[in-house]
């Protein structure tokens, strides 16, 4: 048996036959591949890949976009508008006067930020997400996010709690300030600006930094953090919102809130030396001002 295999030498007829059969098999295989491609296979694979790109987009959306636009794309008060409502799919492009498709509008805003005209002052400006513009995403990831958002179009979500983007020219309703500012607090606000805090922090109508956490409701937030497990586990020692705000300015490392406009808040970005650079009297005024934000009426 082994000897037979080892000494195998096909006869002329076998060669012609085997060669012919192989040739036919090759042609047949090519035809099967070609016919499959031209009937169904190409479009099936196309559908598969489209679907998988939407899956990839979903991952990017949940990682990067959901914290402002919501997991269901309904928008979040004070953070970002809905991306899944009928209004968004039907009217948004017309409203902002965008001369192309909604896809390109979504891509453009995601890549480079929102065009001024369509954006009244949000407390969180839209960060540019494209790597080239300093963001975290590659071009293909943004294409996929666009695919994911457009996938809501087939069944837009129109519940009561959808947050629509304001129309251009129409400012977002400012947050109610329960207490009118005292002259010292007014000064505090100016010091907030003159010391450059606005470069990183947003306060609706006052500042629109997009690096550190938004300070719109800092009083309310501070109360929440002081009571939280995370805060107790940290080095933070504040017991009142005012103490919390002071601590955040003079010892920013004591506690780092988890969420900033561009993702998790990075440690060590807020300068640690404000205690030395801002005179104590100024500091008091800034704190006094900040403590008005989000403070419940009557407190």
């Amino acid at each position, binding site marked *: 048996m082994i000897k037979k295999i080892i000494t195998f030498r096909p006869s002329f007829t076998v060669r012609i036959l085997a060669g012919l059969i192989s040739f036919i098999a090759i042609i047949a295989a090519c035809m099967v591949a070609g016919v499959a491609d031209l009937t169904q296979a190409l479009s099936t694979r196309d559908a598969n890949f489209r679907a998988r790109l939407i899956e990839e987009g979903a991952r990017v959306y949940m990682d990067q976009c959901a914290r402002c636009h919501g997991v269901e794309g309904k928008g979040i008060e004070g953070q970002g508008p809905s991306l899944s409502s009928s209004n968004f799919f039907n009217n948004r492009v017309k409203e902002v006067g965008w001369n192309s498709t909604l896809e390109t509008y979504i891509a453009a805003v995601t890549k480079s930020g929102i065009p001024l005209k369509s954006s009244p002052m949000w407390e969180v400006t839209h960060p540019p997400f494209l790597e080239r513009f300093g963001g975290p995403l*590659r071009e293909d990831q943004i294409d996929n996010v666009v695919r*994911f958002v457009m996938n809501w179009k087939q069944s837009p979500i129109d519940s009561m709690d959808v947050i629509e983007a304001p129309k251009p020219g129409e400012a977002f309703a400012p947050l109610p300030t329960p207490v009118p500012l005292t002259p010292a607090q007014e000064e505090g606000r100016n010091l907030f600006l003159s010391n450059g805090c606005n470069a990183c922090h947003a306060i609706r109508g006052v500042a629109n930094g997009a690096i550190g956490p938004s300070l719109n409701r800092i009083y309310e937030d501070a109360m929440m953090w002081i009571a939280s497990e995370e805060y107790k586990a940290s080095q933070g020692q504040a017991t009142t919102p005012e103490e919390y705000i002071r601590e955040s300015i003079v010892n920013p490392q004591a506690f780092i809130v988890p969420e900033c406009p561009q993702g998790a808040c990075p440690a060590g970005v807020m300068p640690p030396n404000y205690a030395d650079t801002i005179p104590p009297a100024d500091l008091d005024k800034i704190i006094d001002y900040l403590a008005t934000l989000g403070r419940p009426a009557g407190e």
Partner: protein
Amino acid sequence: MSVIGKRLVDQVKSTGWKSTIAQRLDDGFTRFTAGLSWNDVRGVLRGDPAPKPNPRVKPHTEAFWFHIRPTFYHEAVTTLYPTFRLGLLSAVFFTIEIITGIFLMIFYTPSPERAYTNMIDILTNVPFGSFMRDMHRLGAEAMVIVVTLHMVRTFTTGSYKKPRQFTWFTGVVLLVVTLFLSFSGYLLPWDQLSFWAVTIGTSMADAAPVFGPTVNLLLRGAPDIGAGGLLRFYLMHVVLFPLIGIIFVAVHYYKVVRWGISLPPEMEPIGEDNARKVPPDKRVNFLPDIATNEIMYAGIAFAVLAISCVTWYSAPLETHANPLATPNHTVAPWYFYWLQGLLKIPHIIPILPGSIATALDQFFANVLGLTPKVFWGVIVGPLVFVLLFAVPYIDPNPSRRYGDRKIMLAFGGVFAALILYLSLAGIPTGVPVTGFGYVGGTPPSEVAQEFMPDEGEGALMTIPFDQMIVGEHAVRPDANVPDAPKLSRVLAEVYHSMERRKAAPDPLGQILNPEATATVKITQIQPDLKQISININFTDVNGIAQQFTKYKFIHKESGRAH
């Protein structure tokens, strides 16, 4: 009237115009075949014995293509043994790669922005695109196997000995070219699989002492693989290595013409080489015998490849390359598993008892800056090829007979066994039984990886979309979710996988605590998109309760379900 015209007129006058046309056509034909007239070719095709003098040897002396093929072989080498046609098949696969590769080149741009999209286009928009890609990919892997087997056979039959040392040398160059061709092509789809396999591969170069970082920089064009690296790999893949390959195949083939194929060892007196001294009655002429034989084998190889590609084989394309996220269990391509295995050897001299081996490692690290990884992966790894180059020169034995070459054959066997063993060690699951080479995360992450791998498909991802019932399902041996047999089955599988990891520790000694539980949670994200996550509640080595979570998004049309 010109001389040529006059000759034509004379010919028509003497033999008539019909015969003149036939004669002239036959002349042209003969010029085209470099020496065979129409009747000679018919004789060849009919299988007639060669006339004397034999016109069939003329193309070998007159023409380009046949001059790198021998006029005849010894009868004894035209059977399956001793060549097993492996050299021929190497050349066949090389040719197939060139043809299918040119097809793919038409649709491909070597840039990180375009490459992956181009791949999707080839698969979804180009008729025959996926077929060609499958052929190119499977053909490349087949070529690695065939070339390696060809080397194994020339080693076994002692064909590297005098006068074929240089044939062997060019052969080893071709082996290296084949591996580098495969490896450089691996990066081009620019998906996670290729990106990380090549990152691992080139970082081995980086670890080499002195020149390593420079080589790495030259290969990648930047500290990390990016646009520059992709372009360089592309140029290596389509210009540099094919060029070297073609040149060396030509030399290699010429050497086969010059020395003939070595006779089966037992047929020759020791130390002699009679492959070209063939008595006339033992000669098998290239035309037509060898040629038809080769065409047949080439046809069969091509047909097997083509049929494989329309039936069971489909080249993978994972998600877009992401330099920021390393998928779990990234591996080099399989033909470099042995190198990965080498990298996992823990000590420079691993057979010594642990403490002495560690002390020696310390010594080498302090004195020469040599870690075990660098020693085994970067110095010993390439030495393997140096060893192969040296084979004809380190084997002084003139005899090619198997009985006289016990040492060399044993050596070859041990070498092959070592490569296989190291290859096993190179894959994440490691060598069965000994567990050498096992790499794995914590048990919960391994459970998740089994059913929901970072790249590729796991059982949790292939559940049909309508069986992904929204809700949180506990994994249980008797899971029975209504209308979802596949989901229920997978839930039970996850349960058993967890039980296995509770029952016995993995090779790193990690074990899942007995109380660990898991759920699979499915949520609807969009009408045709669901999120499926696996949540494992366990207690870690420090006794702290933890939850491990991993999730995927699954679209109805993704074509995963089966």
